[in-house]
């Protein structure tokens, strides 16, 4: 019998109010790609953080290549051959690729042999097709390249067990395919690969085995030949999932939002938007697709008045709103579901009523200099029941709500303002399948009411499902606008990487 690379038994980890991992069993064989599938909050990351030595389990045992291990720190895990590629990269921007890779593993010698290290890294990189220049500085690299550096770092430290936490979230479809090929090659070398994901398609594409987590429990481990998409969805959610939400044809009206050659800087005063021209019509969902960091955040902020537009013009309902204050733009009928829902869209430590008042405290909830808490409470109660928000105490801090309920509360407030334009940035990020469906339904309902919606998302499936048109953003420009009916995933992927649009696209 083949010796298992990893065996985890009865892993249990409790956080206050949640049992994040409940008696979980997981094994990884050498040479396999083992997917860990589950909704957000199902306990995938907790389990992997235990394996990487970041958390200690309350109960449970781990064996690596047959011997029991007890990690006291990430260093123990690294020494045992466990390498983790986190979703948020842990790299030093001003160091070179080689320096980052040998960081922490250079031994006790005082002098670094940089040339030798670079040579080693080059060999390692070419062996697995992980193309990256060891002498380049991290800040010069694309997101995909940074991920390769993280993988190389793990390999360089001699990891036989590689964990990747949602590695495809930041990649284009092409980059994803390339990553999967690289992973397959590493597995063929006898390594074990664990990939955390919530995307069924990825499991179908590359998994040798899959373990499905639901509410902290491992509900099933299936082999390649036992896997069907439908079963996986059922296992993951615990009920049947309706995959296609019916999108009713909508009558597009006049242009509600119009951007003309809009330019803006990012927080570091580098150009982030470099001439964005686009429009969104009444009753239309306009999706913005693109690799994260190509100006999405700045685009949403410049429209909502939170960022200065350095040149160009923005019109709402034919009135110029360029560089008006956020307050004036809100008053003109722009609602905003920001990327950061806790801390921007909502105030974590205040209660639901205080949060519902955030946009209307100046007018609809004001009585002279005082606040009309009675009206705000009544409105909150109504929104809570209309939007089916699970809320026990309207005065308790909203930080106690789950991600889905938070987003519903935020959408409830923004939609209750009856906006002309709704700017929604990553509206379902971090939400589970059920909450995602609800948010999508709400957006479609809003569209049916004639609201113009600008949807910024990193999930192409979501954009395809909801949008009428898609604009692909690349390095601060709209690289192409495609009608979703004619859209083709391949073409959007190319546009996301900077290819120019060919031919005339019907608008």
């Amino acid at each position: 019998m083949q010796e298992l690379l990893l065996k985890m038994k009865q892993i249990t980890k409790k956080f206050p109010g949640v049992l994040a991992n409940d008696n979980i069993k997981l094994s990884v064989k050498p040479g396999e790609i083992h997917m860990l599938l589950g909704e957000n909050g199902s306990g995938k990351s907790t389990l992997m953080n235990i394996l990487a030595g970041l958390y200690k389990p309350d109960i449970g045992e781990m064996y690596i290549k047959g011997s029991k291990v007890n990690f006291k720190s990430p260093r123990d895990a690294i020494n045992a051959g466990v390498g983790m590629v986190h979703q948020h990269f842990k790299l030093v921007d001003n160091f070179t690729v080689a320096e980052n890779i040998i960081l922490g593993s250079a031994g006790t010698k005082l002098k670094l042999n940089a040339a030798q290290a670079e040579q080693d890294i080059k060999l390692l990189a070419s062996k697995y097709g992980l193309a990256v220049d060891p002498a380049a500085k991290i800040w010069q690299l694309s997101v995909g390249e940074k991920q390769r550096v993280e993988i190389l770092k793990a390999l360089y430290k001699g990891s036989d067990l590689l964990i990747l936490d949602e590695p495809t979230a930041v990649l284009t479809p092409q980059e994803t395919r390339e990553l999967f090929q690289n992973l397959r090659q590493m597995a063929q070398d006898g390594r074990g690969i664990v990939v955390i994901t919530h995307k069924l398609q990825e499991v179908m594409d590359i998994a040798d085995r899959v373990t499905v987590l639901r509410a902290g429990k491992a509900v099933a481990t299936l082999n390649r030949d036992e896997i069907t998409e439908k079963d996986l969805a059922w296992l993951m959610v615990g009920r049947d999932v309706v995959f296609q939400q019916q999108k009713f044809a909508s009558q597009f009206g006049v242009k509600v939002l119009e951007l003309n050659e809009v330019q803006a800087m990012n927080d570091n005063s580098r150009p982030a938007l470099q001439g964005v021209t686009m429009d969104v019509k009444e009753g239309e969902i306009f999706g913005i697709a693109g690799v994260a960091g190509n100006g999405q955040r700045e685009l949403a902020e410049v429209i909502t008045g939170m960022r200065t537009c350095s040149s160009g013009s923005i019109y709402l309902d034919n009135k110029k709103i360029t560089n008006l204050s956020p307050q004036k733009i809100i008053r003109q009928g722009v609602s905003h579901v920001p990327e950061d829902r806790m801390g921007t869209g909502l105030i974590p430590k205040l209660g639901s009523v205080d949060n519902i008042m955030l946009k209307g405290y100046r007018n609809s909830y004001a009585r002279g200099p005082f606040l009309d808490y009675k009206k705000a409470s009544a409105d909150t109660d109504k929104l809570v029941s209309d939007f089916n928000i699970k809320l026990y105490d309207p005065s308790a801090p909203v930080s106690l709500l789950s991600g889905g309920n938070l987003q519903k509360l935020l959408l409830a407030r923004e939609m209750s303002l009856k906006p002309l334009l709704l700017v929604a940035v990553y509206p379902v990020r971090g939400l589970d399948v059920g909450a995602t469906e609800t948010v999508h339904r709400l957006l479609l309902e809003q569209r049916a009411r004639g609201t113009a919606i600008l949807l910024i998302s990193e999930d192409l499936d979501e954009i395809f499902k909801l949008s009428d048109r898609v604009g692909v953003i690349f390095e601060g420009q709209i690289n192409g606008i495609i009608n979703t009916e004619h859209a083709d995933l391949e073409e959007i992927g190319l546009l996301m990487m900077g290819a120019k649009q060919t031919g005339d696209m019907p608008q």
Partner: protein
Amino acid sequence: MTTDNTRSLISLEKKLSPSPVMNILVPVISVFLALLTGAIFLALTGKDPIQVYSVMFNGAFGTKYGLTESIVKAIPLLLAGLGLAVAFRMQLWNIGGEGQIYMGAFGATWLALLLPDQPAWVVLPAMMLAGAAAGGLWAVIPAIPRAYLGVNEIITTLMLNYVAILWVDYLVYGPWKDPAGYNFPITPSFSESAILPTFGDTRIHAGLLIGIVLAIIIYLIIFRTKFGYEIRVIGESPGAARYAGMNISRKIIVVMLISGAVCGLAGMAELSGVTHRLQQGFSPGYGYTAIIVAWLTRLNPLGIIIAALLFGGMQVGGFAVQMNGVPAAVVSMLQGGLLFFVLGGEILMRYRVSINSCRGDDKA
């Protein structure tokens, strides 16, 4: 079978929300622990802690004189604590209460010396206005660079304390020195009409009423008005405030103006109600003690009334134990201990401490 168990003995787990019981319990326990720590030091220096504390308590609250004196000392702490709490609510760390008290005293004195012959109903309101204005403007000086350039207000407000104190020193040693004052660093006494009325034969003056009324007004402003709502939102989450279209920079200046103005009133009340003249070092660090007063109540304006009384009592109790050969510095130590335990108590509110048993649980 391995028996090594790597779980630490004590671990902190994040709690969902602080329970209402804890909100009361933590300050009470903090006071107790501070007294306990003080007791250990007293015992180590050969004093009987119980005796010292009972002298202290009796000195502060046990007699009519002690109680009224404690209230007198509580008044500037109450006013300054309220002023600081307004700024702290917005996460503006105004450490400049002391300087704002001195500037408030300066403003009030100027008016008192300027209008020696006017009736009280003219002079007292004018002194209050001048004190509030001087304290407020003094706080606006660091507020402007904070609002527009992000200059750290902790440093600037603290530094301006020294400037304000030296400015008052200059006045009482120089141009405003009482010619009949035997060369003491004091101004001439205020006229009758520049003195706040007192209650009966005590030294408790109308500053107490001003403080209590202000506490209620500030409570209502923070929790019931649009302006207070903005303060809370900006304090909790500047990102959300910007998103909702609040003008944070302007609010920083307005809030610091209010904070400094209320601290300035503390200076005015102390002069007009107690010392009746401007003198060097008239505040024994009220502006700093008020920081502890404000935090002890978790910035609740109504709670500050009680906390101020407690700290006023500690000052008076400190004088009482001095007679027994215990240095008055024991009071500073207790105050420091209090702040320490209150801040430590915050951890108890937000986290649950769990003590893990060391029983081995591997049955492999």
